[in-house]
């Protein structure tokens, strides 16, 4: 099984997917108007989550998860039986990206994200105290997103605001600041997770037509632009308590981005004088990355070098990204870690980052 935690309890998994099987699962959590909207408009949840996870793509589920019908988990019972109990997890952070591919009706998006959150709280968090959740918020209406954070952000089991990496404007853009401020004020981590609307191009220069480009873009192109945006726009200068996790976005690309980011900042710092330390320091203070997918070389010495360049012990949070199958990169990561690094990456870092106590 890809990305299984090393033997032992206490592991915290920061990216475990779940999703309603269909909008019918969310019906109890929709206000009446939206139940009729869904029916009359023929609105459904995308079976591929907006082409993020094509059902038959080998990346969509490990063979074990596929056999168990977890593509991803639909019920807490299934997750308990196949993930939480067998792996002896101390805690698992639930990721539900079902609303990422929502249509562009901002009022429906607000209703859908509320429904997803209430479904998650009622059917998952209430059912197993090992679970924590990333709440979802509408992306087209900042005020509504703030209101949703105000509504449930103080639930101690809600530890993250989950945002798609594909957006109309990068998350550092000033228009998004109230959302990020609300997250920071509620002590919530902002989790940028791969994917988003189909209509948001996976590249900066336009739309693509292959899953390969989409898949690659999530862990290389888009997320790097988001990191550059958050740092450059001064999000962390304005919100010094804000923590951001990059989920399912890879991590080995970070050192090269930061090397160039620091270098260019030295030359053009005058444009962004609020940036009061070099970008790599800002990132180290405010951003963490989950371990799956792990893009690492095959040779162990090169893996070690990649981890040292990143400062993996400080920067990584273990994630299985269940049920997705990203190949054997994660095994190479685990094999390269020292015992101290394992403790930090598989438990300590996440406990501290998400204030799990």
């Amino acid at each position, binding site marked *: 099984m890809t990305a299984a935690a090393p033997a032992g309890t206490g592991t915290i998994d920061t990216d475990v997917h779940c999703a309603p099987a269909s909008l019918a699962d969310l019906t109890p959590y929709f206000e009446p108007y939206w139940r009729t909207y869904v029916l009359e408009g023929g609105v459904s949840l995308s079976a591929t989550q907006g082409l993020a996870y094509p059902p038959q793509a080998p990346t969509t589920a490990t063979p074990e998860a596929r056999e168990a019908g977890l593509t991803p988990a639909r019920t807490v019972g299934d997750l308990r039986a196949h993930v939480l109990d067998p792996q002896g997890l101390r805690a698992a952070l639930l990721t539900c990206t079902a609303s990422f591919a929502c249509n562009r009706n901002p009022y429906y998006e607000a209703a859908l994200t509320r429904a997803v959150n209430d479904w998650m709280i009622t059917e998952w968090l209430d059912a197993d105290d090992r679970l924590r959740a990333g709440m979802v918020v509408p992306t087209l209406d900042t005020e509504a997103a703030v209101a949703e954070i105000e509504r449930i952000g103080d639930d101690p089991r809600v530890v993250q605001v989950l945002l798609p990496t594909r957006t109309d404007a990068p998350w550092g853009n000033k228009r998004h600041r109230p959302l990020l401020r609300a997250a920071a004020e509620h002590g919530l981590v902002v989790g940028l997770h791969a994917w988003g609307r189909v209509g948001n191009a996976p590249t900066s220069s336009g739309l693509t037509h292959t899953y390969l480009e989409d898949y690659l873009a999530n862990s290389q192109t888009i997320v790097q632009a988001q990191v550059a945006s958050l740092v450059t*726009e*001064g999000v962390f200068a304005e919100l010094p308590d804000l923590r951001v996790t990059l989920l399912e976005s890879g991590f080995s690309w970070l050192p090269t981005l930061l090397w160039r980011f620091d270098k260019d900042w*030295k*030359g053009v710092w*005058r444009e962004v*004088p*609020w940036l009061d330390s070099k970008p790599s320091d800002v990132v180290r203070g405010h951003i963490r990355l989950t371990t799956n997918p792990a893009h690492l070389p095959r040779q162990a010495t090169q893996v070690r070098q990649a981890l040292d360049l990143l400062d993996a012990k400080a920067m990584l949070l273990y994630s299985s990204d269940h049920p997705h199958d990203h190949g054997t990169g994660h095994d190479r990561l685990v094999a390269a870690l020292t015992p101290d690094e394992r403790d930090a990456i598989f438990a300590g870092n996440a406990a501290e980052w998400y204030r799990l106590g």
Partner: protein
Amino acid sequence: MRIVVSRLEDFPPGERRIVQAGRRSIGVFRVGDNFYALNNYCPHQGGPLCLGTTQPWVTSARPGEFVLDEQEALVACPWHGWEYDLATGQSFLGPGEPPARTYDVKVEVASGEGEPKGGRIPGPYVAETYPVHVEDAYVVVETTSGSRRRETPGGEG
């Protein structure tokens, strides 16, 4: 070595002079009533540092706020934009980057000694290159002991 750069009245604020002292080229900057002198040699790759743009510091308490200092304080090398503090030569490119060599600059009043000789007036410091008018103020660069020397492995020019 003392190098007389210019008569004070011929060196208005905002201007600079490049002076040659042997093999050494030195940039002298006037910012308001302050004078700064730097080796015209960028410690990075030897570019003509003192031909670069000067800028004030800009600070900010929050995104979107820009507070520009009144006086220029930095010079950026025209080759790669590496910036140095005009007053101290301090590099702002990060730890380990060498500073630019700086020199003391003074405004001195000529001593008044020396008599006109055949209509010619002797200069006080490097008189062979500068006519001197008694009682005029001069801008003088000091390149020898007593100047602010820094550890500049790449900066000796």
